[in-house]
């Protein structure tokens, strides 16, 4: 569960977010649309505990976002613009390192299964400096799959993914939703998002307006 209560964020005199109120229940996927610079990434960074809101507060899984950061972090995965992967480590080592920092120790079988699931199992021992952007995105997704978070934050998740990769991502989102997970994703791609989004909103100049997923047109998103 994610709940934003009048979240505002400003950088100096520039107001990025204005009183954003949003509630996403368990088992719901909320798609956040909006033009570049609308504040989508800022809102996700705040919910991922990477930035503090200037005004307002938020709760994740019933925990106060500014007070229970470590518990929230243990239950949340953020797939951001950056893949959070080390170029000099191979795919298996990147997974082992990222999961170890979260206190998990996946078995070799788990790692193999998840790499096969994102269709990069053949490159498990390759340094990721040789990976394409799409392969790195798949590996970041594999990391999320192993972490099994209750809350999933996705910042433009379809970028760099091909059709097969997009379908793997959507299948994973559906799996999290079926297990009562909560998903918030920011995107510009309405067609790819519609099959998985339960609700949607458009962020314009820092103000959020909820819209119906079905009635959303591409023209609405600019």
């Amino acid at each position: 569960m994610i709940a934003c209560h009048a979240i505002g964020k400003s950088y100096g005199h520039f107001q990025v977010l204005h009183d954003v109120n949003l509630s996403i229940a368990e088992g719901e996927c909320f798609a956040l649309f909006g033009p570049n610079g609308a504040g989508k990434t800022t809102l996700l960074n705040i919910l991922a505990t990477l930035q503090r809101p200037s005004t307002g507060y938020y709760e994740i899984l019933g925990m106060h976002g500014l007070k229970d950061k470590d518990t929230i972090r243990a239950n949340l995965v953020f797939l951001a613009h950056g893949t959070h992967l080390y170029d000099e480590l191979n795919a298996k080592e990147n997974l082992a390192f990222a999961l170890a920092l979260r206190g998990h120790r996946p078995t070799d079988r788990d790692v193999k299964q998840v790499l096969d699931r994102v269709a990069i199992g053949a490159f498990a021992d390759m340094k990721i400096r040789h990976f394409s952007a799409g392969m790195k995105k798949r590996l970041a997704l594999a990391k999320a799959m192993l972490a099994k978070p209750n809350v999933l934050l996705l910042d433009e998740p379809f970028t760099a993914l091909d059709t097969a990769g997009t379908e793997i991502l959507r299948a994973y989102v559906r799996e999290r939703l079926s297990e009562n997970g909560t998903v918030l994703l920011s995107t510009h791609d309405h067609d790819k998002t519609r099959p998985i989004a339960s609700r949607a909103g458009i962020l314009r100049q820092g103000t959020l307006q909820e819209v119906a997923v079905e009635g959303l047109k591409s023209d609405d998103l600019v």
Partner: protein
Amino acid sequence: MTSFNVIRWIVWKDFVTELRSRETISSMVFFALIVILIFSFSFSMDQQAAREVIAGIMWVAFAFTGIIGLGKSFSTELQNDCLEALQMVPEAKGAIYLGKVAANFAFMFVVEILLFPMFVILFNLEVVEEISLLLLIFLLATVGLSAIGTLFSALTVQIRAREVMLPILLLPLVVPVMIAAVEATKGALNGDPLALYGQWLELLAVYDVVFTVVSFWMFELVMDS
């Protein structure tokens, strides 16, 4: 137990990354070699004169070399926004700090051990009897440099002019380490009784404990800001 695992994995990641890229240690060694060669060609001196000034030259070389390594410690985390992943670790950030300190200490200490024979050869030093004391001085001073340097490496990593800001902020704070290390090294190279310069070793030990504890607690604030 989880904190210990975080420390272990941070050290492992920094070692593996360095072994494969060889960016940090090679640039540190190369820079230090240039400094040593410049000093050795600039001063022509006998062994007695060398013992008087070599400690200062040595620690200038070690400190500036160390700053190169410390600067890279967190700048490598900017690749693919890995710093964000470290900020989101659901553990007390002190474990990340200790892991980084351990890795930075190891890199700096290895470089010092590699470079010391160069000083011995180029400045014609006789150090066989004092070698264990010199190693103790290197160890204590390097712990101090890496303890405070790791904190400032994290503090300056997101600043645009971080390569300039790190030495400007760090060097004034490591003046006690530099003075104590130079005086203790000078005493050991001169073959003085330990009682004459033992207080500098005590100062190094106290500095190490105080700045490791303070930096450990401040690291959480730095990572969250």
